[in-house]
């Protein structure tokens, strides 16, 4: 029971740490391995997001999918 409570507290602390790092707070009061990994994960996700903003992925397929769906019915939508 006590162990479960400890786990919950650790879950909660880590979740708050992730909220902080995702909000860009690098003050990092928690220095456990999981918190360090969370910060690395957030850093890489942010880097990736910046890269995405400078070069959007192409993806005009949707118009074709919709076109096929509206013209040819449900199954033909698969032949995009």
């Amino acid at each position, binding site marked *: 029971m006590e162990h479960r409570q400890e786990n919950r507290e650790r879950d909660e602390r880590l979740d708050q740490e992730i909220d902080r790092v995702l909000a860009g707070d690098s003050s990092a009061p928690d220095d456990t391995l999981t918190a360090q*990994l969370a910060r690395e994960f957030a850093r890489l996700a942010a880097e990736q997001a910046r890269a995405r903003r400078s070069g959007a992925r192409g993806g005009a397929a*949707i118009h074709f999918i919709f076109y096929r769906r509206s013209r040819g019915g449900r199954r033909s939508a698969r032949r995009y």
Partner: protein
Amino acid sequence: MHELLPPAEAREVLRRAQAYEERALTRLYQLFSDRIFRFIYYRIQDRPRAEELTNEVFVRLLENVENFRPGGGDVTLALTGWIFTIARNLIIDDYRRQKKRAAEPLPDDDTDLADETLDLDVRLTRADLQIALAQLTEEQQTVLLLRFEEGFTSAQIATMLGKTDMAIKALQRRALATMARLLTLPRADAARTGMS
């Protein structure tokens, strides 16, 4: 707090999408296509296949949107959860079809190692992260990608996946603990054997 689409707008877009209005369907595509692509690509590491599966997600959305019922809660989260669930199912089907099953996921790691204040002492690369991520269960991968890549809160992910907030927080910590172990043990082994 992640705000993908205000609930009132989500309700309206969904209503119009269910009537197959092209502008509403296009809006859904614009909102979700990159997110879904990223989610799939992170998992399967094959860009052309990820593109195909992303398109397939939207085909399935088209086929089923008229029957989708968001329930009484947050429409945005219900819709987001539904679309990501389509993507998850397609990824699982794709693994099965290709008989390229991912390595058996490691058991949850709840050891104290991950809570020690050791220094991870390295800037990880995306490849490091992807390799470690691939060792997790499907559910753990989903939670971490929604949390870190998409910026949803634990409470939002819980709503999207139909779980409790506590369950998501526990999944999240065990997933990160497993990854931390995977990312630190090789270095510990290398140090023990005198290699760097």
